[in-house]
């Protein structure tokens, strides 16, 4: 009873004091924003009892309009018609029966009480949490140019500042190239852009970048973090897992501009589409991305549950920008997700065919055989096209030059493409005399050869009869309760579309539906985050009641609707962002503005680049980067014994066998990802383990990073080959230095930078001239042989400088 709201006399009392407080001529109090200021307080301080997980069905609920404004017997917690009569006012001020109760862990501050009071004075309008209401495009004044700039400028105007000046063109070129492709611009490319004085030169430059294969590789990386892509199973033995064709498919999807709604649908339910293509099936690797185990004593039912928890919760983070985890054990404390709903979502995944235990097998569960890398994929596409071509020609000739017997006719009609090709290739078949026959025979051979080189990839497949899903008490696998659960979605986010099947395909239809309030917002926020360095919503993993509000809500919503309107075209959205004036701003912190978090977007981005980009820039600048795409993860240099120190003796990833030759120099996207021990140069610079979803990496700054930047084998090797490039490209120091800065900063060095650099070179020349043996030692690190025609002293001196600039903020920062 203590917790129940009480009535009457006190209401009158407070009403009186209200009128006293309000007075008559007081200026109108500044309006309080409910979703920004009030709902977060309610969620933080009140929902623990009066929220989705209320213990008692009769208890007041403050997490919905209906609950908060319900008639509690002559009074209401929040009375929209007579806000000053709201019971909540009484109780938060009460000393006898205070709310929150005196013994509650979280108490309201005076400031919070005042805010609630003010809000009620202002009318006490209770509205749904912003993120659960479908976004709309707020109309813009006719004269406004780019939408992004409009909304950002509008807020800046409130602070009496304008957008910062544009960054200089070289800096901007470097910035946009790094954002879109993860690499600085090629010097020639940069030159074309800088000398292009026509209008829209920048837009053309952006288009060129987006057409590069490097674009898809770079964009894919963020997705792989979110879906926790790894090359191993992740638990216990952490054995190899064959799923890299999925990674390569993601790269292709971005490079081929697959609309994001299809991108989502294929991953969730490619196998459930009518007559799914090979790509659509590969994409379902997403469903199989959960870490798995085959530990000796493990109980299968336990891991059936755990695997599904993982998939359900990953879906929450990746698409809904919210944690569903709380609802695994009980109704969510803050967000309107019931435990029942959690298991409704889980039920979508509880019907996949694989066993809960991975058997430590590379081909765990359902697998498809598919081309093993991008070249093989391209070749396969050519073969498929050739087959289509032959079949079309063959079909066309039937009844013309070719006559089919009755038998052949029915055989032809019932055969698939492969079968028909066999009929054509048959020496004794109806096409025996046609020139098509030998072409078909050759093609059949080529296809068989290509298929012979296929690899396997984990895919999703449905059981004919789905497993029964029940709510698990406290999330304990052995405590199911209640009736079997029918797959369904979260009520707060709108129901499933009409006619949507109750399977993963229906789930995808729901996620990509026009009415879904979250998916597009969550996706554009993450696109913004990788473009501007940080999201409009600073908690990309949480759009719920305790997440941060967008810095520019109208802008986020506009972009989300635009994503739908433009046909889920990622390049379109990215283009809007990178061509905005906001993006082009100078990155310098502004003296006149105190905005360390850049919430106003009054300057361009500045932050340390990701682990992969740091490595790729080095390889690229030193001319080492191998552009081969796709295939099994590569194993560059790694200190000895790192896997062995952790691995189970029975694990097939206990020994790290370093690659040789060009595989040492592939893009970092392709570096082998052992989930229990990823490459140290990745983890050193904040790459996640990929055991669980990561939609925003931390950006730490540690001494160990310094050691890695300056001492790691690959970095020393790249500095050496970069120096070699400098020495062979220019005769004079000035020219060499110019090229160094052109590669890493897309500009010439300043006088001061040149002075610092040359001072180091001179020092190193003297030093290595005194002991050329040291120079030889230094230049022999890494597999690539040094260019012996170069003077070792000069080479070593320039290698030192290259390593230094490669480690400096000039190279490792985005600005």
């Amino acid at each position: 009873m203590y917790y129940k709201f009480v009535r009457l006399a006190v209401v009158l009392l407070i009403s009186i004091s209200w009128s006293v407080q309000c007075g008559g001529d007081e200026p109108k109090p500044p309006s309080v924003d409910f979703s920004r200021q009030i709902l977060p307080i309610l969620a933080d301080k009140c929902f623990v009892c009066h929220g989705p997980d209320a213990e008692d069905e009769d208890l007041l609920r403050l997490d919905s309009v209906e609950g908060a404004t319900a008639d509690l017997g002559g009074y209401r917690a929040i009375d929209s018609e007579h806000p000053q009569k709201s019971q909540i006012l009484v109780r938060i001020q009460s000393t006898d029966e205070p709310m929150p109760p005196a013994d509650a862990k979280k108490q309201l501050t005076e400031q919070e009480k005042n805010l609630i009071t003010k809000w009620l004075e202002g009318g006490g309008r209770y509205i749904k949490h912003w993120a659960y209401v479908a976004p709309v495009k707020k109309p813009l004044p006719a004269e406004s140019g780019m939408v992004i700039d409009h909304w950002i400028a509008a807020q800046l105007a409130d602070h009496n500042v304008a957008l910062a000046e544009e960054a200089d063109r070289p800096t901007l070129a470097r910035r946009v190239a790094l954002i879109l492709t993860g690499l600085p611009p090629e010097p020639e490319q940069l030159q074309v852009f800088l000398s292009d004085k026509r209008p829209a030169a920048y837009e053309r430059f952006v288009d060129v970048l987006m057409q590069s294969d490097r674009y898809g590789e770079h964009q894919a990386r963020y997705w792989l973090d979110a879906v926790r892509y790894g090359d191993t199973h992740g638990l216990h033995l952490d054995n190899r897992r064959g799923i890299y064709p999925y990674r390569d498919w993601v790269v292709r999807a971005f490079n081929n501009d697959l609309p994001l709604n299809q991108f989502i649908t294929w991953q969730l339910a490619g196998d459930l589409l009518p007559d799914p293509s090979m790509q659509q099936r590969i994409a379902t690797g997403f469903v199989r991305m959960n870490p798995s185990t085959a530990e000796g004593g493990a109980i299968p039912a336990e891991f059936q549950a755990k695997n599904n928890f993982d998939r359900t919760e990953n879906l929450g983070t990746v698409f809904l920008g919210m944690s569903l985890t709380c609802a695994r054990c009980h109704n969510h404390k803050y967000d309107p997700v019931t435990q029942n709903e959690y298991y409704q979502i889980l039920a979508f995944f509880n019907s996949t065919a694989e066993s809960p235990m991975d058997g430590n097998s590379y081909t765990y569960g359902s697998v498809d055989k598919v081309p093993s890398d991008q070249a093989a994929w391209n070749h396969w596409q050519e073969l498929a096209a050739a087959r289509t071509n032959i079949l079309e020609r063959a079909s066309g000739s039937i009844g013309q030059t070719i006559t089919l017997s009755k038998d052949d006719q029915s055989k032809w009609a019932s055969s698939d493409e492969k079968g028909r090709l066999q009929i054509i290739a048959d020496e004794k078949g109806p096409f025996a005399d046609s020139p098509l026959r030998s072409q078909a025979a050759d093609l059949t051979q080529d296809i068989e050869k290509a298929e012979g080189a296929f690899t396997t990839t984990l895919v999703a497949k449905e059981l004919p009869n789905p497993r029964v899903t029940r709510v698990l008490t406290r999330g304990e696998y052995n405590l199911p309760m209640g009736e079997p659960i029918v797959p369904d979605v979260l009520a707060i986010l709108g129901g499933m579309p009409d006619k949507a099947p109750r399977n993963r395909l229906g789930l995808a239809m729901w996620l990509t539906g026009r009415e879904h309030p979250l998916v597009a917002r969550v996706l554009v926020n993450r696109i913004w985050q990788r473009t501007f360095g940080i999201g409009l919503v600073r908690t990309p993993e949480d759009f719920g009641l305790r997440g941060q509000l967008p810095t520019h809500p109208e802008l986020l919503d506009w972009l989300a609707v635009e994503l739908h309107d433009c046909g889920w075209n990622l390049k379109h959205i990215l283009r809007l962002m990178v061509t905005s004036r906001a993006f082009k701003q100078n990155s310098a912190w502004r003296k006149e503005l105190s905005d360390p978090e850049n919430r106003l977007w009054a300057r361009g981005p500045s932050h340390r680049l990701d682990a992969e980009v740091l490595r790729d820039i080095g390889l690229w600048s030193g001319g080492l980067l191998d552009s081969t795409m796709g295939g099994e993860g590569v194993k560059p240099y790694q200190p000895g014994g790192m896997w062995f120190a952790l691995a189970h003796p029975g694990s097939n990833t206990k020994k790290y066998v370093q690659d040789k030759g060009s595989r040492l120099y592939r893009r970092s996207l392709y570096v082998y990802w052992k989930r229990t021990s990823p490459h140290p140069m990745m983890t050193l610079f904040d790459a996640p383990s990929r055991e669980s979803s990561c939609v925003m990496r931390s950006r730490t700054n540690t001494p160990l990073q310094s050691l890695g930047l300056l001492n790691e084998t690959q970095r020393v090797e790249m500095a050496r080959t970069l120096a070699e490039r400098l020495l062979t490209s220019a005769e004079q120091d000035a020219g060499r230095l110019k090229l160094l800065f052109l590669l890493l900063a897309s500009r010439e060095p300043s006088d001061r930078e040149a002075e610092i650099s040359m001072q180091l070179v001179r020092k190193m020349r003297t030093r290595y001239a005194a002991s050329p043996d040291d120079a030889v030692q230094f230049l022999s690190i890494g597999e690539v042989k040094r260019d012996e025609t170069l003077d070792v002293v000069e080479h070593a001196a320039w290698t030192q400088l290259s390593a230094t600039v490669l480690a400096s903020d000039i190279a490792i920062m985005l600005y």
Partner: protein
Amino acid sequence: MTLHNPAREYELMLTRRQLFGRTALTLGTGALAGLMQPDLAADTDKSTAGIHHAAKAKHVIYLFMSGGPSHHDMWDYKPKLKEKFGEQLPDEVRDGQRITGMTANQKSGLPLAASKYKFTKHENNDKGVWISELLPHTATVAKELCVVHSTFTEAINHDPAITYIQTGSQIPGRPSLGAWLSYGLGSMNENLPGYVVMHAKTSFAEQSLFNRLWGTGFMPADHQGMLMRSQGDPVLYLSNPRGVSRADRRAQLDALSALNQTSFEQFGDPEMLARIRQHEMAYRMQASVPELMDLSTESKETFELYGESAKTPGTFAACCLNARRLAERGVRNIQIFHRGWDAHGNLPREHESQCKDVDQGCAGLIKDLRRRGMLDDTLVIWGGEFGRTAYCQGKLTAENYGRDHHPRCFTVWMAGGGVKAGITYGRTDDYAYNITDADGVPLATQPNKETWTPGTMHIHDLNATILHLMGIDHERLTYRYQGRDFRLTDVHGHVVHDLIA
């Protein structure tokens, strides 16, 4: 644009930290001091200030026995089991306990196997403590030990169990105990990180370890444990490349700092200044770590304490000696992982070797800390992720047997750092299978993580107690992720005050 005001600069950095790490508001002042760069930190010694209350311990050295050491054969003496040799575990003792897939359907059932080892009662500060002949050295420090027989968990397999005890969750993704300590307390030494992890050599590396055990989950990655290795560089990438001297590196860093300074002048991003300091700390580490690893200054007496094997890099004893040296240099949190305790079969052969690996190192560490006056503020913890069964896995003979995983009770000991010295805590039944009350009477219900039962220590209770000793309230050290204020102890954990001196 320059920022000469250190306080302002610090504020900005902190803001960025909050920005990227979303540091919860509950972070106390001690944690702030820890987060501060040493040169900006207050000059008073805050090392035992704690963040929520005064700390009993400045350092924690966690000797983690991965795989599940057998409490039966080392610590939990059950003479009555001898009479029941080969008999089946009674159902009422099993009391519905789920059993791993390895012994659930064993043909021989669940035959009881008493320890073959001789136990001796050693004097402590209470009623004495039984220790088996496998740990002759550890037995000599019985008066320092707080031996807890009633530690328990729910997990019955390695990966979930070790992830649980180290991160508070059976499913990967959460910050480790060490990361929480680093987040809460920061570092005390400007030349070394605050959290160091070592892997000791073993003959039976039967189970795996995972980066997540010293990782940060959703917390910023700078709270992860730094691996101190016995192969190659002790710290990854510590050594300069061949042909690069310390003077060369100095010249290089001078140029690097000057270049970064120009970037800072151009952009004014305080992160750039912070990085200059990190490069300098790296340079200092290049001197401080070799000095740390150089055992030549250690006396003969010291090696006598730890044993000869302490001279061989990578042995458990060498790791223990390093741990002391690290603590001495202000490193707060040190973990040594020793694998090979997963004795499903041939337990005697394996555990004899395992005990030999660790016994003298453990005792040496405690004696060494004691004689240097460091034990009082250094908490030493010894234990694994679960215990082992009273029944045999595989073939049972008087001389040879194996044991499966057992979650309901296992032994963990602590020493120093504010825990009571020379006591035992918690009691188990005659099968060392279930926790009982102090009189040996079975508990009415199995203890659980929801409500603390006196005399027991759930792994969340253990972690809550460790944090408490370090000056941290486990309910108040939180980190917000996905709208939730996460804790190491989830929504559980109880500080076991009975153990605290």
